[in-house]
């Protein structure tokens, strides 16, 4: 998939820096043997690139494979096909020793602030773990844990407390601190703010944006909420049933979606302005997107064809390839 569109018209575009992360034709199947062959792949030929300092949003509904892609990148999910390379080196099947080398540069923030910290360990121990794995002495690790806590807006003394003594938003800040403590290059944020209330969600989103600007981080920001993604991401990849439907600059995808599924997704995301929301609702109803069917689409066709108002026979038999439409790449025969 060609991502290098005219979004950044600076020297980088002429002499592109090596990609921070490159995912190519990624396929993930669950199960083994005959079972794996009988069910559709959870991730089916997904490709995208993240450049240094760039944030890419991965959006889709539940079951679209967005979290599975994040897990595959982090080495938490076995890859069935395709490749993942990080700063030019192939990490598709990296073992725990190779992971240990990258671990510092490739980090993660997970969704559930309640279970992403070990309840039996103090915050200090949890924060120091990634440093200790790299052989940094305990005293130094503890100092750095304290520094990092202050950076995310928590008191240094928090190192001696347990996760249960913090609110959900505070725990998510601690998770961010844990991800950033060893100066990473890329952070995978898997639904990192979905479990938070509005005001705490805004705090964590601001923190992520500030840290990115401060340290030149790249993010893979996985979320089901396209508005949250659009706050952080420069580019968005829209997934449906494991396949990329549309990808392009965040503004283009969210304001001028080309794929019928992206259009449905954007129109269904409610805005807190009653008059505008009524307009959106009319638009959504006029799109005529059908309710998700229980049966999966035929393997050969477009995965969205059963719900798509534009679908024809061609859509059920031939899977559309990604092609450039305006600023975005769209997988639709009729976009």
């Amino acid at each position, binding site marked *: 998939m060609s991502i290098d569109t005219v979004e950044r018209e600076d020297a980088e575009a002429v002499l592109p820096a090596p990609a921070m992360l490159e995912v190519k034709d990624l396929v993930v199947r669950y199960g083994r043997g005959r079972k794996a062959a009988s069910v559709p792949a959870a991730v089916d030929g997904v490709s995208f690139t993240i450049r240094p300092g760039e944030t890419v949003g991965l959006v889709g509904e539940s079951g679209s494979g967005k979290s599975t892609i994040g897990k595959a990148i982090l080495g938490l999910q076995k890859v069935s096909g395709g490749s993942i390379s990080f700063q030019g080196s192939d990490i598709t099947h990296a073992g725990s020793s190779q992971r240990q080398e990258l671990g510092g540069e490739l980090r993660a923030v997970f969704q559930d602030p309640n279970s992403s910290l070990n309840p*039996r360990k103090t915050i200090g121990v949890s924060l120091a773990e990634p440093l200790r794995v790299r052989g940094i002495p305990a005293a130094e690790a503890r100092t750095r844990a304290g520094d990092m806590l202050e950076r995310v807006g928590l008191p240094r003394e928090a190192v001696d407390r347990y996760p249960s003594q913090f609110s959900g938003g505070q725990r998510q800040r601690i998770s961010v601190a844990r991800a950033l403590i060893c100066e990473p290059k890329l952070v995978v944020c898997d639904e990192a703010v979905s479990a938070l209330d509005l005001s705490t969600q805004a705090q964590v989103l601001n923190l992520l944006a500030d840290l990115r600007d401060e340290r030149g981080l790249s993010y893979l920001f996985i979320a089901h909420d396209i508005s949250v993604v659009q706050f952080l991401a420069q580019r968005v990849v829209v997934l449906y049933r494991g396949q990329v439907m549309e990808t392009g600059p965040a503004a283009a995808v969210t304001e001028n979606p080309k794929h019928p599924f992206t259009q449905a997704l954007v129109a269904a995301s409610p805005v807190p302005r009653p008059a505008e929301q009524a307009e959106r609702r009319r638009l959504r109803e006029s799109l005529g997107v059908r309710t998700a069917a229980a049966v999966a689409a035929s393997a050969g066709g477009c995965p969205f064809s059963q719900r798509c108002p534009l679908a024809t026979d061609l859509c059920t038999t031939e899977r559309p390839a990604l092609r450039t439409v305006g600023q975005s790449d769209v997988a639709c025969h009729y976009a």
Partner: protein
Amino acid sequence: MIPSIAPTATPRKTALAKFSGHRLLTSPGGLAGAVWLAALVVASLTAPLWLPYKTEDQDFTAVLSGPSAAHWLGADELGRDLLSRIFASAAGTLGTSLITVIVGVALGTILAMTAAGAGDRAEGIISRVTEIMMSLPGTVIILAVIGAVGTNIPLIMAILGVLISAGIYRVMLGQAKSLQSQLYVDAAKVDGVGPLGISLRHVLPGLTNTVVVQSALIFAVGMLIQAGLAFIGFGPPIPQPSWGGMIQGASQHVYDAPWLMVPTGAVLALTVLSANAIGNALGKSPNATASHLPSAAIRRKRTADAAAAVAAAPAVENLPAAGQLSVRGLSVGVDGGTPLVTDVTFDVAPGTVLGLVGESGCGKTMTALSLLGLLPSGVSVADGQILWNGRNLASATEKDLEGIRGRDVALISQEPMRALDPMFTVGYQLTAAIRRLGKAGKAEARAEALSLLEKVGIVDARRILKSYPHQISGGMAQRVAIALALSGKPRLLVADEPTTALDVTVQAEILSLLRSLVKDTGMSVVMVTHDLGVVADICDNVAVMYAGQVVESGRTASILDNPRHPYTLALLAADPHANTAHDMPDRLATIKGQVPQPKDWPAGCRFAARCQFAGSACTTPVPLLPSGSEDGEVRCVKADELAVEGLAWLATEIPTHRVLEIVEKDMA
């Protein structure tokens, strides 16, 4: 930043010390058991210092005698002192039982952690091996070992440990697997922590509780088996004392010297009981998970109490019209303690939707549940009225409420799957509800169920009727839950975050469905949500709640387009949905700190501590006053000033005192 934490330094305790010590000491059985075992071990280890006789000393004048001054517990058939023999052999018995415990529990735990960490294939192999181990006849193996190497008690007990480890593995495996699937284990893997490190650092600490409990139980089993072996003659070589051997000796004199059995039997029984009591005490879960909703019996008792209390209050005047819900000065609190919701007042006219909106911990769900009399145990309506169809639901008895719930007032909740029983088909549950509420016949109820499912937009209703809840998607399940709620033809629907767990495309469909149902049936809806977009989509009126109070209420359009309360302003400014890609700010507005705990609510404005506009006037209680726009109300002393000044909630976190200066300068 963290008000919930006491300023005192947290003592650094290990997880083990924290859970075992406390639970053991607070349970009388566990305490007694621990004291007995400790006394036995001490007595036995110091035996040479204090025992009156050597174990082989014979006193032929006391053969088979009962307790006496010379022999406190009597003497056996060879005139040996029982007290001396029991305590001298205790250390050996306990020590060798410990071998079984160590071997069995260690091996079982290691196998479980390996199986949980190494993937499906390794788990399959280990499970098959342990199944074979469990199917082997243990007694036969032990007797065979004795035949081959003689009565080497430590070796026999170690082999027994190996056999028992298969059972321990079974107990531990599920727990180890659930610990392996925790996100913090994923986080550690991302750090590059190897499988061994993960097992030791993240899985093992979570298993300690089970390890300790199982150890205590296996210890008891080991002692019994060891005594059993000695009883059938496979104990320590003959002159050496052992509990099993002594019981065997006593059993030959059951008729001529029955006392002989008592001391040894009692000590063995007490020791086994002690081990079990310790296991029970440690295994007892400190707080068994209670159900979210109270049992009917609790509700009955509670409503009786409430009815008595509210009956004393003056009679209701100006009853609202039929189909109108009027909540007046509602307060909900922990029984005899902290208030959770205070002085909530709102009206819902027939055919309209009211949104209760706010962050978690603001009391919106409590308010909604009180409309159905479904408050959790220990929480009840403390004051106020819930007027519905000419009656006050706040003082209704449980029997009255049972007649109203499901018929007049229905509930749909956030987790549609929880509303459906996984053991029955959708059709069975739906027809059962229709027959119970409408007293219809079987065929009639089935037809009604079909039409209800069609009404909630399910196309292949016949197939769904035959499906079990796990066979349908979340969106479909919420439609079924709505159909179930509609089966009693309710006039008021309480919807607690009905679309929060759903995808946005499904959420939009469910909201459209609810809108058309309201239009067709004229029912009213009270919708609890944290999503301002959902409010904009479906609610006619909205009440914004903060820390148990309504801080602003009125027409949805006027509240969202022209918010008057700083909290509403802040929520809108923090919501990324309020912006499009082109006007997305670099930073979202935030509210510093967090929603205060009910016990920390100040007497004045509850939002003041987090408010950019707070001043000295905010320390006194603030009433809900007309906001001036339509029939809106707002609970803020500065609302008028803010409206005149046209101040917006600032995106950057400016310290309160700075903002105050700005505001006060503007006023001057």
